[in-house]
Every structure is written in C-alpha cells, then in structure tokens.
C-alpha cells in the first residue's frame, strides 16, 4: 500500500503534458476565488467566528466574577452540571412551549392577514400601514404596555376574560404559574404577526394570476386553488420565515424579562432568560456559556431538520 503510494507519487513528479494545464485549472477554480474572498473571510472570521469560539471555550472553563482566582479549564464539568440541572429542563420545556405557540399563532394570523391584504378594498393603503405598526414599536415598550393591560387594577384584559367566563375572577394571569406564559405569548403574537404578513404578502404577490384563472376554468374550488397553487408557491418562503422566526423567538428574552422576569417560580423562565440570570445575577459566565451552547446546538439541529424537510418536500 505504502509502496504503491510512493510509486504513484513518483509518477506525478515525472513531468507530463497534462499537469501544467491541470494545475492552472486547479488554481483557477480552487485557490484563486478564495484569494478574492479573503478580506471578507477574514472579516467574517474575526466578527463572527472568533466570538463564537471564545464563547464555546468559556463553557469548558470556570469563570465566576466572584471567584476571580478560581478560573481555569474544567473540561465537561459544566455540561455534567447542566444535565442534572432541574431549572435547565424547565427552561427548555418553556422555550419549546413559548416558541411553538408564538410561531403557530403568528404564522396563522400572519397568513390570514396577508391573504386579506392581497385583495382589493377601499382604504387598503391605510390599513396596510396600521397593520405593520406593532412591528415598529420597541419591544420594551410593548412589554410594559401589555404587562399593565394584564394588571386588573389598571388594565381591562382580566375583566374581559372574567366576563367571558375564561377566568373565575379578574386576576392577573402573569401571577398564575399555569397561565403566566400566555401573557408574553400574547404580546409576542401581537408583535410578530406583521412580520409574517409582510413577507408572505410579498410572496403572494409574486404568484402569477394566470394560474388561478386556469384553475377556475378547470372548475377548482377556492380551497383547491389555495392548497394546490398558493401553498406550494408560498412553501419556500414559509420554510425560511418560520425557521428565522423560530430562532429569533427562541432567543428572544425581552418580552418575558420585562413582563414576568421568568416567574412566578420559573414558570416562564426560558433558556435565554436563564442564560441572562446566570451571567448577570449569579455572575457565572462559564455556566451561562454552557447553557448558551446547549441552546445553539438545539437551534442548529432544528435548522438542519427544517432545511432537509424543505429539500425533500418542496419541489420547485
């Protein structure tokens, strides 16, 4: 085997007519482009990769601001701690719950809104501008507003819910561990619907009208033209927006942080709020990085699965 390799190498050193051309081809297609790209690669490397590597390296170290002399490499100690950390699993479960229901309603309502805005009606321009307003409101402000809306002393929502019979009495759901997560989710839905509406509306407007006309001539029902034309054309956009929003929402701690602070009793603690508390309250940056790496891995796996599904299911 080794002998063969030597012979092979000996062969290649013998100059033959083709290698010069092949080398220049190799140079042209494999090396040269990277030279042109090198400034960008360096920039991206220094701006994105370096912090990522540093962050991941923190998770294998003990970095506590209060024990500045006890820093050092600890191997997988942080990860072992994470595995048996009850709060981590609670936060993970809450993250999935929070992300799924936020996305679910944002997407459905956003799609409905986009379909409505895709028709012609009087005052459409004004309506369109109003619809996109929540997206422009600073999250901190919307979180505070929603928090007070849910407060029975000042806000109307608990009284409406009680009048509808959803609640037994007008109390603040943000203080109820079983319902608290729905407060931030509501605020998040209000905040995120416009994003889906904007992107899906753009995709809807690019579907050729002839397709619908042809379908109508062939006697398709509205439901059939929705499922056979609209959805397949929207699918790539749906896949990419759902993926983007999922990653954003899973990392999105502002609303929860302002509205409930992760409480009561960790019932609204998601991974990103837990990372924040660990880093800035416990001042334990090593462990905070470990949780962050876990979140990163989960989101990467999710993105890979979604992209794979898109490749398999969407044939465009």
């Amino acid at each position, binding site marked *: 085997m080794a002998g063969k390799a030597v012979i092979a190498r000996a062969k290649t050193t013998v100059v033959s007519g083709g290698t010069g051309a092949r080398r220049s081809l190799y140079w042209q297609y494999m090396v040269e482009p990277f030279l042109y790209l090198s400034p960008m690669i360096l920039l991206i490397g220094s701006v994105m990769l370096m912090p990522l590597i540093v962050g991941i390296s923190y998770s294998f170290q003990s970095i506590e601001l209060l024990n500045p002399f006890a820093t050092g490499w600890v191997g997988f100690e942080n990860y072992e701690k994470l595995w048996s950390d009850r709060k981590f699993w609670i936060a993970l479960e809450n993250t999935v719950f929070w992300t799924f229901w936020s996305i679910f309603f944002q997407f459905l309502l956003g799609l409905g809104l986009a379909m409505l805005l895709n028709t012609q009606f009087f005052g459409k321009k004004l309506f369109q501008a109003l619809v996109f307003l929540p997206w422009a409101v600073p999250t901190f402000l919307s979180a505070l507003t929603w928090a007070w809306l849910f407060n029975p002393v000042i806000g109307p929502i608990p009284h409406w819910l009680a009048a509808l019979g959803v609640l037994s009495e007008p109390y603040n759901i*943000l203080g109820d561990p079983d319902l608290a997560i729905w407060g931030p989710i509501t605020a998040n839905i209000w905040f995120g619907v416009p994003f889906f509406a904007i992107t899906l509306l753009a995709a809807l407007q690019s579907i050729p009208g002839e397709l619908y006309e042809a379908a109508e001539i062939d006697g398709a029902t509205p439901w059939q033209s929705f499922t056979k034309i609209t959805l397949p054309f929207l699918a790539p956009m749906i896949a990419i927006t759902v993926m983007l929003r999922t990653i954003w929402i899973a990392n999105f701690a502002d609303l929860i942080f302002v509205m*409930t602070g992760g*409480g009561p009793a960790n019932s609204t603690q998601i991974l990103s709020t837990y990372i924040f508390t660990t880093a800035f309250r416990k001042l334990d940056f090593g462990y905070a990085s470990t949780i962050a790496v876990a979140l990163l891995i989960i989101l990467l796996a999710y993105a890979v699965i979604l992209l794979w599904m898109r490749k398999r299911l969407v044939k465009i």
Partner: protein
Amino acid sequence: MKKFLTGITTAAMLTGSAAYAETTLKLVEVITSPERTKVLQSIVDGYEAANPDVTVEIISLPWGQAFEKLATMVAGGDIPDVVEMPDTWQALYAGSGQLASLSDHVADWEHGATLTEKTVAMGSQAGDLYMIPYGFYLRAMFYNKNLLAEAGVAPPETMADFMAASAAVSELEGKSGYCLRGGPGGTNGWVMMAAAMNGTNDFFTEDGKSRMNEPGSVEGIQFMLDLYQNGYAPKDAVSWGFNEIVAGFYSGTCAFLDQDPDALIAISERMPAEDFAVIPMPVGPSGKAFPTIGFAGWSIFKATAHEDKAFDLVAALSAPEANGTWAKRVGVIPVHKGADQDPYFQTEQFEGWFKELNGDQYEPTTMPTYLERWGYFASTVVLETSQEALLGQRSAQDLADEWAEFLTDEHAKWQAKQ
C-alpha cells in the same frame, strides 16, 4: 439678523465658558425615578455653580437593570467617578478593591464630625470607609384606616393580631389583608417574618450556621405561606414587585403594606392623609420585631483621575442641608446628628418609623450584605424558591433548608477571607 447675531454671540460665550470646565465628573445614579433625578440635578447644579471648572455628567440607570449595567460599565473600562452605592453591592465593589477609601477625606471634611455613628458604621467595610450613606430605609407597616374600620379590627400590634386582621379584611368583597410582595424585592418580608417568629435577627450562630432553618424561622416562613394560601393576600401578589404592592395599597385592594419611608411619597400623592397611617412592624412571640434597615450612599471609584474633585461632589451631596432636602424628597431617614428635630419629620406619618427607632422592642435588621453572593441570593434565589413555596410546590421547611445551606456556605467563604 439681530436675532441671528445675538444667537452667534451667545453661542460664542457658551463655548467660551465651557472652556473653563476642565474636569468632567461622571456620576451614576442607580435607584432612579424622574423626581429623584430632579432633586439630584438641583444639588449638582449648586455644586457646579460653586465649582465653575467642573462639569458633572449624571447617568441614570433604571434600578431594574442597574446591577448588570454598572457591572458591564466597570468591566468595560467605562468607570464612573462617583456612584450611588446601594448597601447590597458594597461588599462586592469594596471587597474587590474597586472603591476609594474615604476615611481621610471625611476626617478633613467640615461636616464629617456630625455624621451619626450608625452612618459611619454602615458605610465602612473591614474598618475603612468606602461610602457616605445618604439615608436609611426602615421598614414599617402602612395600614388602610377605612378597610380596618369596615372589617371592625384595630391596628395590629402582634403577629397573631396581624394574621387575624388580615383574615378579617379578606372577608370583605374583593379585598385582601396583606399586600404581599412575592416578586422582585420580596426578600425583606421573608427575613422579617422569620426573625419575628424566631425572636432574633442574628443571621448566624456563633459557629457560622445560618439560623434560617431553626424551628422559629420556619414558623415565620410558614406564617407568610399561610397568609397567601389562606387567601389573605391577592392571588397575583405572588409576582408583585414594588409598583404593584404600592398600587395595590393605594387602590384599596389590600389593607396592609410593609414599606420604607420612600413609599410614603407615592402613597401621599394618591391617598388622603386621613385614610392611612403607619405603625411599627408587628412583634412576634418574643415581644420583639425586627424591621429591616437598608441604606445607600455615595462612593468613589478608585480608578477616578480626579479623586479630590469627586470627593468635593460627594461632600456637596452629603452636607447637612443637601442631605435634609434629599431625605425629604427621596424618603429616607437623614444621616446627620440633630436632623430628626426638623418639624417635617415630627408628623403622624413618620410616627411608625420613629417609634421603631426609639422603642426597645424594635431591633433594626441589617441584611448580611458583606456576603459576596447576597445580591444573587436576594434577587434570584429567594425570588424563585419563595414563589415555588407560595404556589404550594414545596414546604416551608424545604425552603428554609435551602436558604440556610446557601447562607452557611457563603458565611464560611466570607469567614475564610477575614
């Protein structure tokens, strides 16, 4: 044209006068409210007028994020000269050698001698002065006169009275007894209840064991759980912070509120003086109560390039007259001797606090802020675990054991450094 010329000359004069200001001091305030910033600004304006070569830049951090914001500023090298230092962070910053010693400065200061002993003691750490406290927050019990009259109960003096009165008020339609603080900042409540039932406010025994899980303390924690679980506090109080308990009190949702003098400002604005009064904290079985006392003050970072100028600013903020104004507007007990003779503090509204200050059965409790992770304990550990207990997910004993273990560990760490 004339206007334009005047504008030009004014601008020129302004830039001219700005050229005198050679020193810029960065002052960070962390317990922020618009009213408070106004008072601070007015005292600072006076200082700037007296020192034309100094400009003071005030940075207001909202209390909710102040801890991490300041920590981030300091870690990033953007270190302020003067900072408002709450008692809970003093150990962290002074212990890590970030703060300048003020002992020599105060010795040379004309008003240094009139600072009360308590003030100097509280501002000191390991025998050196690192902050000049600007006042004290002492806990006392506000009560809603109308609700108590309606329920037919007298203002409570003992813990048993307090439970009975809370129960009586809760009988009223849509009313609750106690404005319980289950959310951020609730630690003081738990500590006071535990101490009142345990008959001592020592946090540790001689051999450094936390007293948090002694039977008396557990009873105190159970007392609080009973208040909530029997419905003597509003259902959503489990997540109430400062704004919510104060709103709950002045809206007449709940009848009792334990708070510091600073809450008086917010409540006086929204409630007629004859509708509420302030009494001392109810005493436990031992005949004693242990209202928590807190404080904050002005500190100087060691990294400052203008230590003397920075101290002049701290001195201006801490001078008797400025401190008196500050105490009245911010709602704290002032720090200079003789300040309590001011007629402002001799009203019925302050009666509860001065009774506590003068009565033998009331022992003010200082939190063990010298423990490095006390801030984390108070802001996060107590918050999360106590909410679990209030919601019935764990027992008082379980809670007490976890807290005691944490505090005993921290105390051992602290002891090792002494």
